[in-house]
């Protein structure tokens, strides 16, 4: 039997001019994520573990809008969303608006495996993380200088998320 892994790090105004000097770092991060997932698949591991492993690499990398380096809300908070689904059973787990889960995808996986629910949101999702030993971290850890300045620029212009034509999404 064969295996396949496909990953993405977001779509949008991604051109050589916009990406600029970050291109090599982004390519290396994508390659690391690919390696993390394919190492599991090549050893006969499960697809659900491979997708989580790849995502956690990208959540930790500040170049992507997820986890550390995530876009900030109007109030300067990282409100993180994630979902995971197992095609074999159609089990699924999702979190919306978590602010403390170091890896939102790990929290979504815990919701799938350790609760009768599919989605948990906000403070409830964070409480579930605490109660189930899912790693949590201070919200400030997610905010990078680039995201902080993007938010400041947006607020100075008097806009909010949808005035910027997904420029920062």
């Amino acid at each position, binding site marked *: 039997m*064969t*295996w*396949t*892994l*496909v*990953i*993405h*790090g*977001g*779509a*949008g105004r*991604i*051109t050589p001019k916009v990406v600029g000097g970050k291109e090599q770092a982004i390519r290396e991060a994508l*390659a690391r*994520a*690919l390696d993390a*997932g394919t190492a599991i698949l*090549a050893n006969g591991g*499960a*697809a*659900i573990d491979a*997708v*989580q492993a*790849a*995502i956690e690499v*990208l959540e930790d990398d500040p170049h*992507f*809008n*997820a986890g550390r380096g995530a*876009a*900030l*809300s*109007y109030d300067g908070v*990282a*409100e*993180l*969303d*994630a*979902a*995971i*689904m197992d*095609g*074999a059973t159609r089990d*699924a787990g999702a979190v919306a*608006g978590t602010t403390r889960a170091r890896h939102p*995808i790990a929290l*979504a996986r815990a919701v799938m495996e350790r609760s009768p629910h599919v989605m948990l949101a906000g403070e409830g999702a964070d409480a579930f993380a605490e109660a189930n030993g899912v790693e949590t971290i201070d919200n400030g850890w*997610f905010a990078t200088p680039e*995201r902080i300045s*993007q*938010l400041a620029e*947006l607020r100075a212009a008097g806009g*909010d*998320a*949808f005035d*910027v034509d*997904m*420029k*920062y*999404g």
Partner: protein
Amino acid sequence: TVGAVALDTAGHLAAATSTGGVTGKRWGRIGDSPLIGAGTWAQDGACAVSCTGAGEFFVRVGVGHAIAARIRHLGEPLEGAVAAVLGEVTALGGTGGIIAVGADGTPQWRFSTPGMHRARATSDGLCEVELFAE
């Protein structure tokens, strides 16, 4: 937004998506990423899907579930189903990208934006990392 879809050697599919949403979001805004059936979907025998882009449009189209339904009910190949459903998103005014893998391990990506950070690998030795459209 980041995403991953996979087929393992047991023939099982999985999908995962994670995001910070959009800069400046207010009122607890949620996009498609955490919504099963929209930004994230996996169903053995059909496909696994992860999306990125203008989330509200991907929610309205129910992208992940729609692609799987076209494969299951119309017998459409993965590439055609992804193109058709991204076309529905575009027709509503949305932009973004989709990655998918079929039950046969076909790796697929498609986007209507200037670029998409993306990579793919297979047991046949395919290994690609791409950022831009061309």
